[in-house]
């Protein structure tokens, strides 16, 4: 377990993360919000701020592999955790994640503001065998990501394309998915 620690309101606290696979240390005040630290201090602008209150999903990142709203998380609470943002999804050689590629091919956006959050939710969902794979289940699991441009149809299509793509590439994963479906 993490050790006990106490910090005054204007102290800066060092937080150690694994950010997109790299170890990072950043000094934050106790009230600093993960979303703001990513955007303002760590210069990762891919994660977007829509509502700042958990109501839109634009700020979705993965914390230890789980999709969360970074606007409702204290940066200090991420000590020792792995944080992945949209910047961390592609391969080192620039190859896009299958979900990113499918969004491109399906034209699953208009203005693109909600897109990083949509993609972070979709990648976490495709890795979660507790969530069924039919369209209705996907729509429900993705409902925490609002798209003001209304690109929902193509977003759904892109996610289902990526699912097939990922199953084709990884037989182990495809077994799991069909088990869940049955």
């Amino acid at each position, binding site marked *: 377990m993490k050790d006990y620690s106490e910090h005054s309101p204007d102290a800066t606290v060092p937080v150690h993360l694994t950010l997109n696979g790299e170890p990072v240390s950043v000094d934050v005040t*106790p009230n600093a919000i993960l979303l703001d630290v990513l955007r303002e201090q760590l210069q990762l602008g891919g994660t977007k701020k829509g509502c700042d209150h958990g109501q839109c999903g634009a700020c979705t990142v993965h914390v230890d592999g789980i*999709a969360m709203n970074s606007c409702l998380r204290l940066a200090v*609470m991420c000590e020792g955790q792995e944080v992945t943002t949209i910047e961390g999804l592609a391969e080192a050689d620039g190859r896009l994640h299958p979900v990113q590629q499918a969004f491109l091919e399906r034209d699953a956006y208009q203005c693109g503001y909600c897109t990083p959050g949509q993609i972070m939710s979709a990648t976490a*969902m495709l890795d979660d065998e*507790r969530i069924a794979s039919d369209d209705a289940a996907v729509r429900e699991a993705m*409902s925490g990501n609002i798209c003001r441009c209304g690109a929902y149809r193509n977003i759904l299509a892109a996610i289902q394309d990526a699912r097939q793509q990922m199953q084709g590439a990884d037989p182990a994963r495809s077994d799991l998915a069909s088990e869940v479906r049955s």
Partner: protein
Amino acid sequence: MRTFAYARADSVERAVDAQHAQQAGAFVAGGTLLLDLVKLDVMRPQQVTDISALPMKEVAFVDDDRLRIGALVTNTDLAHHPDVRQHYPLLSQAILNGASTQIRNMASTGGNLMQRTRCPYFRDVAAACNKREPGSGCDAMQGINRMHAVLGGSEHCIAVHPSDMCVALAAIGATVTLQGPDGTRDVDFGNFHRLPGETPHQEQDITDDELIVALTLAPPLAPQGAAYVKLRDRASYEFALAAAGAMISLDGDMIGEARLALGGVATKPWRCAEAEEILRGQPAETATFERAAEAALADAQPLEHNAFKVPLARQAIVRALRDATRDAKEGHA
């Protein structure tokens, strides 16, 4: 955003001590409620005690068939837990009907029990609100009260209790275990949330330096059918206008045991004991369900904009009872 001191607790005792030493402290688990309300300046903690690393993440049956849930179990993990799905399907359904995937991933069981109202006047520091600022009045009374309660309100507050999870808990029955500076105590779930009365700012039976450590469910009704019906302005990621959670066990075509609770229409998670009494031993058919719904809503006091909630809740009840009956017939659990 307002500043606060921060402590990361490494034991339950230390968390309670850290809080006990504070005038205005708050625990943080998932942060989805606290940080939302700190940003709005509705909650103003001077110190935040992070309890997220404490060992309160287990779900396991204790003696006599009761499921004990650690206060830090996330809403997602609880809803998908095999024992919850099998023995307490109503709880699983209710949780999955709430919030979004991301918020459920963050939200803790304890935090959900401590959830505060979404009343827009409570959330707006420029408005009068007896819950936020005791004695300041209630702007909802004469204001836009479409979202407000028709059951359990007082002249001081008509704010709705927003939780879906708690509606299922009201129907199932549970005990909340608290740890404070002087040890632990158990509170019956039905008494944990308070009616607003003259003190709407006192929302739960818990003191500032008590930590919820666990929730223990009553033994499951067996065999049972269960259904949670949530009616709202959009199909997902929205709070209830009216919700009903029902559990039914059948004795042939007759109802054996029945449980019914409401959300979205009341100032606390609302168990309908009279309606349950009407259901027991009666034929499991629409006429019975309608009588139960009438009884459940007999005391409803609609306001200027929310009278629609009465027929809406009636529908939610009838549908939940019908679906729970169908589920029981199909031999669930």
